[in-house]
Structures are given as structure tokens and as C-alpha cells.
């Protein structure tokens, strides 16, 4: 198993922390993991992205330009990363923020109303956990318990009271795929 | 280098064993011929520091830092552990030492080119942090070691090898009064300006040096800064006597002697 994922969106959408949660959860599952952020001035309000690699073998290059999965949370990122998804790969994207959906027909596309789902749970900031839930439903490589263990590491302790709502979001994301 | 006029063994003295000893070389001042020019104030300044170290009995705990300048070889004369620092960086080096060995006594011995030109940033920030060290600042208004170029402290109109028509303040700026400048920093604990050109001034400078080291040992305040306004007969193109006279006639009008900042309690 070797999963190469890019997560991209605006700064503040939780792009980097979502990737970190992936990586932590992978480590909990004893996988080899690497998390590589885009860093620089764009961290402050502009676009942000990170690459996560989960593998059952030693990871060679953390620098890649082809992905199995792209999780796209804004339009500029769609334009940047659509072409970098491997044939037969997948794009998960947030429904309300993407105006022009992907045009390729050699990849799977999942349009996820994650912002709406987050609003229905009364917490806009759990949008990224909903997407993460959808990803794990599509790619059963990370157990929910590992993700929750990971989240405990990623979330600062003062936010630990938000763990239950995040767990709910994880399940809500899975349901988006059931339907 | 000129030889001493009188070799010590030629001094004839009767009833030597019956006399009180009133003067001797400090134990920590190494018995070696100084490389300083005749009449230069460095040798007296060295002596005052080593007398202080003897009196406070801190040879085993003192580390000195001497950067580039005429006094770069200070470790040839001071029988203590020493580090030679890059030009301008003495107080940074001293900071490094003091931070990892906070119970040691650390001092720098710097000239005016070092402390007030190339090392101005380090000087200000070290004192602003209130590093508990002693800075001995020997200010002779010239770059002595490199052959008498203009220093940041050179007085207006003064002729040097790089201000051949005298320091023109319009194009070369004004002399920096470092002691006054740093005295406004909260980290400066004790700031004083002294001289070593006369018996009276030497006695005062000694007192100031002793105080500065004592303050560091007490460990209550910040940085102690002892400026010694000195001469440079070679660089000034004067005889030692003329240079001392010049200090009295011109220099001290600009660089006023005396304490500039005292610890709060005094």
C-alpha cells in the first residue's frame, strides 16, 4: 500500500492540520508516513497545501507531483492540482467552494457538501474532519480510533473539548459517501 | 621597541630589607616586557585590572575577553583564562561565556574602534540585556594598531591618517559619547568615565574598576561599564608628556570624567 495525497485550499481551512491528522493516524497504524507542507508567505491567508504519504514501505521521495488522491477546498487549488492526479485516482472536493468541477474523466470525483454538513452540526470548523471521514470511507486504510488518537495530538489541549464533535464529523463524512 | 632606560638590577639601594614595600607587580600580571608604545595608557589599565583581580581573589574564576586592537595580546600579560575575540564581538563572546558559566567573572577589554564602530550593535545589545559582565573600554580616539586612522571617537578637527585635514564633522560625523549613550539603557548598572594619565586619575580609575568587578560578583545589577579615556602618543604624533597634556587641555572637555550612572542604591 502506498497512498500519495495532496490537500489544498485556503489558509485557515485546516488544510495543514488535516494532513497532520492523516500522518499521525498513519503512524499510529505503524505505517511509514511523511507530511510536507507548502511553506512561506502564502501560509498567511493565501493558498496552503500539504502532501501526505502513507505507505507500508520506506518512503523514498516526499517530493512528488502525481497524487492518488487530491482533496481540494478552493478553486485555485483545483486548477493547480487536477492535472496532477494519477489516472484512476480520485478528487474529493468541497461542493460549495468549487464553481468549476474537474473536467477529467479518467479519475473518480466526489463532490462533498462538507460546508453544509458542518453547518448542520453547528460548527463550521469541522468541515475538514467531514472530508477526512469521506476519505477514510473511500480508502479504508486508517481506523477511526487511530484518527481520534491522532486528533488528540494535533489539537492543542485547550481544544480537546471539541474531540466529540470532531468524531461526529468523521462519521458524518462517511455518511456522505454511503449515500 | 625601546629598552628600559634603567635595568632593575642596576638600582642601588641600601638597607632594602628594612624598608616597607609600597609597590609591587600584581601577582596576576605576568612579568613580561609590554609591547605597548612608551607612555601608552594600556599598561596602566592592565595593571589596574590585575590589581583588582588580586584584591578580590578571583583569578581562578575570571575569564577575560580581548578583541582585535592594540590590546589583542592582553593574554600575554594577564595571567588568567582568556579568549581573543573577533573585531567588535568581544561582548558577544563574553555573553556566550557568562550564559554557560554564570558563576564566573567575565570581562571584556575593548578599544574605541572595536566597541564604538564595528561592534556598536553588540555593545548596545549586550548592555541592553543587562549581561552581568564588566566592560573596560579604553578610548584613545584613534585606531592605534592599524596605524592611526580616524576612530568613531576622534575629536572634530583632529588630524589622523584618514582625516588628513582634520575630522570634518560634515562629512565624517561627530565623535560618539558611548558612555552617555549606553547609560540610558536599563541594563547598564554602573557607567563611569575615568583616566590613567596622572597619579590622581589612576587612583580614581582603580576605585572604579574595583567597584565594577565587585558589582558583578554581587550579581544584582546589569552591565558595569568603565571607560578609560587614554592617550596614543604614536597615533597622535606626540610625546607621552604632550599627549597627557593634550588630554587635560582638549579631550576631557569633550569626554568629561566622572561617574555617569550609579547603581540605584547609591
Amino acid at each position: 500500500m502506498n497512498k500519495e495525497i495532496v490537500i489544498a485550499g485556503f489558509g485557515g481551512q485546516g488544510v495543514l492540520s488535516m494532513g497532520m491528522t492523516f500522518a499521525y493516524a498513519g503512524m499510529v497504524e505503524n505505517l511509514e508516513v511523511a507530511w510536507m507542507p507548502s511553506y512561506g508567505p502564502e501560509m498567511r491567508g493565501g493558498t496552503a497545501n500539504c502532501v501526505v504519504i502513507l505507505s507500508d514501505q520506506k518512503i523514498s521521495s516526499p517530493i512528488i507531483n502525481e497524487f492518488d488522491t487530491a482533496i481540494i477546498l478552493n478553486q485555485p487549488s483545483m486548477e493547480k492540482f487536477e492535472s496532477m492526479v494519477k489516472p484512476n485516482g480520485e478528487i474529493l472536493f468541497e461542493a460549495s467552494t468549487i464553481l468549476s468541477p474537474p473536467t477529467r474523466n479518467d479519475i473518480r470525483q466526489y463532490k462533498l457538501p462538507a460546508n453544509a454538513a458542518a453547518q448542520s452540526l453547528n460548527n463550521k470548523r469541522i468541515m475538514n474532519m467531514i472530508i477526512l471521514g469521506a476519505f477514510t470511507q473511500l480508502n479504508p486504510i486508517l481506523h477511526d480510533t487511530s484518527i481520534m488518537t491522532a486528533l488528540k495530538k494535533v489539537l492543542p489541549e485547550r481544544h480537546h473539548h471539541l474531540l466529540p464533535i470532531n468524531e461526529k464529523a468523521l462519521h458524518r463524512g462517511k455518511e456522505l459517501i454511503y449515500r | 621597541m625601546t629598552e628600559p632606560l634603567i635595568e632593575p638590577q642596576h638600582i642601588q639601594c641600601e638597607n632594602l630589607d628594612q624598608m616597607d614595600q609600597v609597590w609591587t607587580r600584581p601577582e596576576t600580571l605576568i612579568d613580561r616586557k609590554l609591547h605597548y608604545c612608551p607612555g601608552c595608557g594600556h599598561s596602566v589599565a592592565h595593571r589596574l585590572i590585575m590589581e583588582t583581580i588580586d584584591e578580590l581573589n578571583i583569578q581562578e574564576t575570571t575569564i577575560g575577553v580581548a578583541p582585535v586592537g592594540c590590546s589583542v595580546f592582553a593574554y600575554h600579560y594577564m595571567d588568567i583564562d582568556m579568549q581573543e575575540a573577533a573585531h567588535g564581538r568581544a561582548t558577544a563572546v563574553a555573553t556566550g561565556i557568562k550564559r554557560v558559566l554564570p558563576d564566573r567573572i567575565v570581562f571584556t577589554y575593548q578599544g574605541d574602534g572595536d566597541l564604538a564602530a564595528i561592534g556598536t550593535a553588540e555593545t548596545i545589545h549586550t548592555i541592553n540585556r543587562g549581561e552581568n559582565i564588566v566592560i573596560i573600554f579604553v578610548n584613545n580616539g584613534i585606531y592605534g594598531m592599524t596605524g592611526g586612522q580616524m576612530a568613531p571617537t576622534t575629536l572634530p578637527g583632529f588630524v589622523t591618517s584618514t582625516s588628513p585635514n582634520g575630522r570634518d564633522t560634515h562629512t565624517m560625523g561627530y565623535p560618539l559619547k558611548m558612555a552617555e549613550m549606553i547609560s540610558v539603557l536599563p541594563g547598564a548598572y554602573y557607567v563611569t568615565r575615568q583616566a590613567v594619565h596622572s597619579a590622581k586619575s589612576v587612583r580614581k580609575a582603580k576605585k572604579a574598576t574595583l567597584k565594577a568587578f565587585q558589582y558583578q560578583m554581587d550579581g544584582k545589577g546589569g552591565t558595569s561599564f568603565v571607560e578609560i579615556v587614554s592617550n596614543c602618543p604614536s597615533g597622535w604624533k606626540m610625546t607621552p608628556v604632550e599627549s597627557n597634556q593634550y588630554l587635560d587641555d582638549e579631550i576631557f572637555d569633550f569626554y568629561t570624567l566622572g561617574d555617569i550612572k550609579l547603581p540605584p542604591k547609591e
Partner: protein
Amino acid sequence: MSEKLLMKGNEALAEAAIRAGLKGYFGYPITPQSELLEYLSHHLNNRGGSFLQAESELAAINMVYGAAGAGVRTMTSTSSPGYSLMQEGVSYIACAEIPCLLVNVVRGGPGLGTIQPSQGDYFQAVKGGGHGDYKLIVLAPDSVQEMADFVYLGFDLADKYLMPVLILTDGALGQMMEPVTFPDYDVEKNKVDHSSWATTGKLTSRSQNVITSLHIEAEKMEDINIHLQKKYKTIQENEVRYEAINTEEADIIIVAFGLVARVAHKAMENANKKGLKVGMIRPITLFPFPTEILLTLSEKVDQFLVVEMNAGQMVEDVRLAVNGKIPVDFYGRMGGVIPQPSEIVDKLIQMDSSKTHSK
């Protein structure tokens, strides 16, 4: 061995430094190494050391000179422009033979450049960097784990040879997160006695210790140089480290260090899937450079390909090692751009086919 932790390269390096017995850290903020400074500002003072944010890199390296001269484990970290600013101090430290650890988290240059990763400081790192004839031991990690491991190694080598050791890494390795475990390292057991030279206060039982790089007589200064060169020769004989992969069957050998070695590794795998025969040498010590293995391989393989994130710096050392025996090709990206595995594969295919044509 510690539990497995997920950490940024910069943070792993900082944590390892504390575990290795770091006593003095002096640094100045610069992207992309600031996490290192920040991590130590949070943790070093509580864990037996002294952290100080200096007013400049110039001050920082001289604080290192002072503290390391007091005989304790001392380090600084910076990124390219800051490292340039430190060079005078590094030269002094090398001459005065003071052990310390330096970290350059390289970013793209020249000038203010970019904050993206680069290997453009290779020459500066391995050829000295400042004025005069001197060398540093240069370690090039390629993973977050090595970012930690090389701190212990770096301090041990610095103490052994009384010289600065440089960890040459880059912005991407500094920023990326990977699992890391910290080895059990006994600080006391690895402590080297520096009392014969360190300035800690002159006890009456010994003569004064003086740290200086000033030796005004030319003959004396030459003696110092001879001594330093002898030391560097010993290091060349004893401390070369590299990783060799697939070298037995290879037609083409890639030579790459640091992060680029990871990219090149993937390119090698992909190229071999396409039927090429590619192997790899990853220099771990950039000084001392793994010259001998390259010379040996030059008698077995057809070509070398050096891949770097610069205009071609290490390639000169590879060419010196191979001494014209076989072609040494180069592929590089500059200014903060990281080469992709696919670019390297394309280059390998091109090299392989030109070789076939010439046959």
C-alpha cells in the same frame, strides 16, 4: 529509545540537541529555520541549557565562540543569508579549534533569494566558507530521523576533532514531518574532558588557557595550518560516510545528497522499473567526501549522474573523484525549486539512450 514521535525536521533536530546535552544555544530568527529557535526557546532553559536570541547572526556565532570556548556543548542554527554573515566567526572557531555544532537550513539564493529549499550553499559548506584554509565536517541528513541522529554524531565528532561540525540541510527537510525516535544517549558517558584548553577560570594548579586564532609570526601560523591540514587528513581517512544502493548491477550511478537523494531514490526505482540499471551513492559526509567509492565505481559503471538543487556544485567533487575516467552528467534545479522524480527519470532515459547510440 524514545517512543515514535511525528515531528518537523527542525523540531526533531532541536529536541535531539537537548538530549545530546546542549548547554548553550545562540540564534537569530530566519525562515525556514525559525522552528528550531522557537523550540529551543521553549525547552532549553528548563532542561539544563541556556537559550539566547542574539541581535544578529554575527553576534550569535561569536556567542557560540565564547560558550563553546568554555568547553560546553554549544550550537547555533540559521539559514543561508545568516550563515554567510557567520563566516568570519566560523573561520575563527575553526582556527582556534573549538568544538561546536552549526546548522544551516539552506534556502534558495543568491542574495535574499527565496525561503524555498536549496543546496546552493554546498561550496560554502565543504570548501571552508570563510577566510583561510579550513574545513568543517559536513553532515547531510535526508530524513527527519537523520536530522535528529546527526546531532549526536555531530557533537561527538566536534568533541573528538575539536572543530565545528555543520549539519547542512534544507528548508523542506526542516519543515516536513516524519516519524522519529530518539536513541538512548548517555550525555555523561559521551562527555569529553576539555579542561586542558577550555577557559573556565585559571586554577593555580595549571597554566592559563587561552583561546585565540592570532599567531602573528608567519612560521607559527604555518605550523597551525600544518596541524589543521593533518587533522583534516585524519578525518578524510576515518570519517567518510555514505549510503550505496543498487551499485552492483548498475550502468548509471546517481550521486545525490540530502532531500534530493530521496527524490533521486524514487527516480532510480521508477527508472529500474522501465528496464534501466540505475544505482545510487548518497554522500552523508560532504566533507570528508566519499571519493574512494566513486573512484572504485567509475571502473564498473558507464556514467554518473549528479543531481542537486543548485547550478552544479557537488558535481565538481564527483568529477575530481572520477578524474575523467567516465562521463559525469548533471541535473539540477535552482532558486528553491525541487526536482521531481519524473524529471530525473527523463534525464536517466536520455543518458541511457545516448549511451546505447554511442555503442
